[in-house]
């Protein structure tokens, strides 16, 4: 593997891993946000019911 091959390998792996982490983080974030929204709406309907 030539010199540029190693450079490409390093940069590729690094940015690939960072991208994968970002995607996984965004996914976790969105699912938590969705769950919070569900909980908020449930609480809102509870309050409406009580009134």
């Amino acid at each position: 593997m030539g010199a540029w091959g190693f450079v490409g390998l390093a940069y590729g792996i690094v940015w690939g891993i960072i991208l994968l982490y970002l995607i996984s983080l965004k996914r976790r974030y969105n699912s938590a946000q969705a769950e919070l929204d569900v909980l908020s709406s449930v609480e809102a309907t509870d309050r409406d019911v009580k009134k």
Partner: protein
Amino acid sequence: MKKGAQPIKKRRGILGALALIAIAVGLYRGLAIAPPDAYQGQVQRIMYLHLPSILTAYLSYFLVFIGSGMYLWKREKRDDILAHSAAELGVLFTALTIIEGSIWGRPTWGVWWTWDARLTLTAILLLIYIGYLMLRSLIEDENRAASAAAVLGIIGFLDIPLIHMSVYWWRTLHQPPSILQPNKAPWENVHPSMLIALTISFVGFLLLYFYLLSLRYRFGEMRCEIKARRLARGG
């Protein structure tokens, strides 16, 4: 709670965009404009990733230390969330550092890995904070997990200089002079273009780090809130 969220999200978005720009410019300068090293050739360009990675990791572990200390002192959830987030990112960047170093080492030293002082030190660092994450996930009670992890966060960070000293002495004393050159940046005669590439890359990494930290921190907050609300509703 939605009202305060929008400006934060917007600021985070700007941070992310800035990070992207800095990284792109850094890539361009590091790969296209900066000249290849006189001795190492093109492979030296990996250093534009390697140095910022390890410095970012150290910054992250420092934040773990601060968060852990604050948590043990004030017992506020947000410090614990900061510590946990910073630990996760620290592990990410340390792992990246080791990978980059390994790929750099293959053409430069001829080996993918060696038990050189600095490499051993970085591997130990990775193990310590992977241990931190494992500890958190295995203790069931939230508060006890946070306290235990906070202690680990503090002693882990303070142990780093000691581990550094001991590993360095271990590998360099009582050894015959090594043919392996430790990775030292030649600050005396480094081409200005290289310095620029390195600095811009570092700025890019920092911005990226804080963007990721902001996301991860918010995620931690949300998880906390979900738990609290579920508890309030009775399961």
